[in-house]
C-alpha cells in the first residue's frame, strides 16, 4: 500500500484486512455484547503473539464474531502510510462485511482480498483466475459497528480515564443539583406555608400583633401549666392511708393538707413532696402533713 497524500479534514474510515486481526466465530450462550467482550480474551488464549490486544465483538446469525487486534500495531502501520490516528473516524474489519465481498478486491499490485467460504483472506493475485471480475471497496460496505482509535500522544488522558472522570463529575453535579433544589424547595415551601397561615389568620399579619399575642398567651400558658402540673403531682400523693383533706390554689401559691393513717404514710408522703420540691410541715399532734409551694 502506497502512502496516502490527502485525508479529508473531517477524518476517514478504515477497513482493515485480515493481516491486522485474528478472528474466531463461536456460538456461546450470551445475550449482550458486553458479556461476549468480557469472555473474548479467554477465547484467544494461546492463539495470539505477545502484544496488548483489544477485542471487538459482533453478533451474527449463528453466534458471535470475535476479533482480536493490536491497536498500536495498526496505528504504526497507518502512520507509516501518512494517516494519523486522530484523522481516523472509525475502523472496521473486513470480516464484518464478508457477505458483501462477492468478488476479490485488489490490494496494490500483488495481493487481493477474497471471501473464502465466508472468511476474508488475503491471497496473492496470481492465485486469481485471469478473467475473474474484481470489485472496489465502497461506502456501501460500511458495517454498522466499528471501533475508534485514540489519538497518539496528543491527548493527555486516555478515553477510559476521561469517561471515568466525566462519570464521577456528572454524578457529583447531579448530587449538587438535587441538593440545591431541595434546599431551594424547602425554603419556598416554608414561605408558602407562612403565606397560607397568614391568610387563615389575618389578625396575625402584623409582627407587633403577633408578638403581643405571643407574650400574653405565653405568660398565661406558663402559669396555668404550672398549676395543672402541681395538681397532677398532688394527685399522686393520694394513696392508701393518705387522704386529701384540703387544697387551696391561688394566683401565687398553693397549700394542701393530707391526713395520714400512720407515721410511715406521713414519711412516704413527705418524700414524694420533697421530690416535687414542695415544702412540707407536720400538723401538730397528728400524722397529717401540710404541703405548700409557690406558683
Amino acid at each position, binding site marked *: 500500500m502506497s502512502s496516502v497524500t490527502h485525508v479529508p479534514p473531517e477524518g476517514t474510515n478504515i477497513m482493515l484486512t485480515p493481516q491486522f486481526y485474528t478472528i474466531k466465530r463461536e456460538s456461546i450462550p450470551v445475550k449482550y455484547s458486553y458479556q461476549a467482550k468480557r469472555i473474548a480474551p479467554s477465547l484467544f488464549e494461546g492463539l495470539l503473539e505477545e502484544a496488548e490486544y483489544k477485542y471487538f465483538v459482533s453478533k451474527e446469525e449463528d453466534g458471535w464474531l470475535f476479533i482480536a487486534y493490536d491497536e498500536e500495531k495498526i496505528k504504526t502501520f497507518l502512520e507509516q502510510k501518512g494517516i494519523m490516528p486522530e484523522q481516523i473516524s472509525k475502523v472496521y474489519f473486513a470480516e464484518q462485511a464478508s457477505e458483501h465481498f462477492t468478488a476479490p478486491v485488489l490490494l496494490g499490485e500483488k495481493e487481493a482480498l477474497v471471501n473464502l467460504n465466508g472468511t476474508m483472506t488475503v491471497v496473492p493475485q496470481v492465485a486469481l483466475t485471469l478473467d475473474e471480475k474484481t470489485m472496489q471497496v465502497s461506502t456501501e460496505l460500511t458495517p454498522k459497528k466499528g471501533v475508534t482509535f485514540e489519538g497518539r500522544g496528543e491527548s493527555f488522558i486516555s478515553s477510559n480515564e476521561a469517561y471515568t472522570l466525566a462519570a464521577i463529575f456528572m454524578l*457529583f453535579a447531579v448530587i449538587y443539583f438535587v441538593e440545591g433544589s431541595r434546599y431551594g424547595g424547602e425554603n419556598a415551601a416554608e414561605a408558602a406555608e407562612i403565606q397560607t397561615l397568614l391568610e387563615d389568620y389575618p389578625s396575625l399579619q402584623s409582627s407587633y400583633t403577633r408578638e403581643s399575642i405571643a407574650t400574653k398567651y405565653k405568660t398565661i400558658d406558663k402559669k396555668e401549666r404550672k398549676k395543672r402540673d402541681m395538681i397532677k403531682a398532688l394527685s399522686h400523693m393520694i394513696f392508701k392511708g393518705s387522704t386529701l383533706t384540703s*387544697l387551696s*390554689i391561688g394566683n401565687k401559691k398553693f397549700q394542701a393538707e393530707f391526713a395520714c393513717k400512720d407515721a410511715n404514710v406521713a414519711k412516704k408522703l413527705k418524700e414524694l413532696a420533697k421530690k416535687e420540691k414542695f415544702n412540707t410541715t407536720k400538723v401538730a399532734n397528728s400524722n397529717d402533713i401540710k404541703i405548700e409551694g409557690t406558683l
Partner: protein
Amino acid sequence: MRELKRYKNELIIGLTLLLLLIAFFYKQVQVSGESSSGKDTATSLQELKEVISLKKIWGDKKITKKVEKLKTILPPSKVQWSRKSKKLTASFKNITPQELNKLMVKIMNLAVEIEKLDVKKSGTSYQVELKCKW
C-alpha cells in the same frame, strides 16, 4: 474539527467539570439562601405556628360553652353557678371523692385561668370552690 477530536477527552472532562462547578455553586447559593433568609423563614414559621397554637388553646372561642358543661357533670342540687361574661364563680357541695376526681379532671382540661380553687373535705364528702376567667 480535527483539533476538537484530538482533544476530545480533555473536552469531555472540561465540560463535565464545568457542569460540576455550576452545580456546586448552584447548591452553595441555595444553601446560603437557606441559611440566611431561609433560617429567618423557618424561625418565622415556627413562631407563627406557636402563636397560632397558643391562640387556639387560650383564645378558644368555644371555651364558654365548654365551661358551661362543667355545670352539668354534677347534679344541679350540688352546684352553685355564677357566670358573668368571661368570669365564673362556682361552688360544688357534698360531692363524693369520685365526683371530685371527675370535676378536677374537667377543670384541669379547661383552658381557663384558675384564680382560686379551694377543696375542703368535711366528713366523707368534699366542697369545691372555683373562680376562673378566660
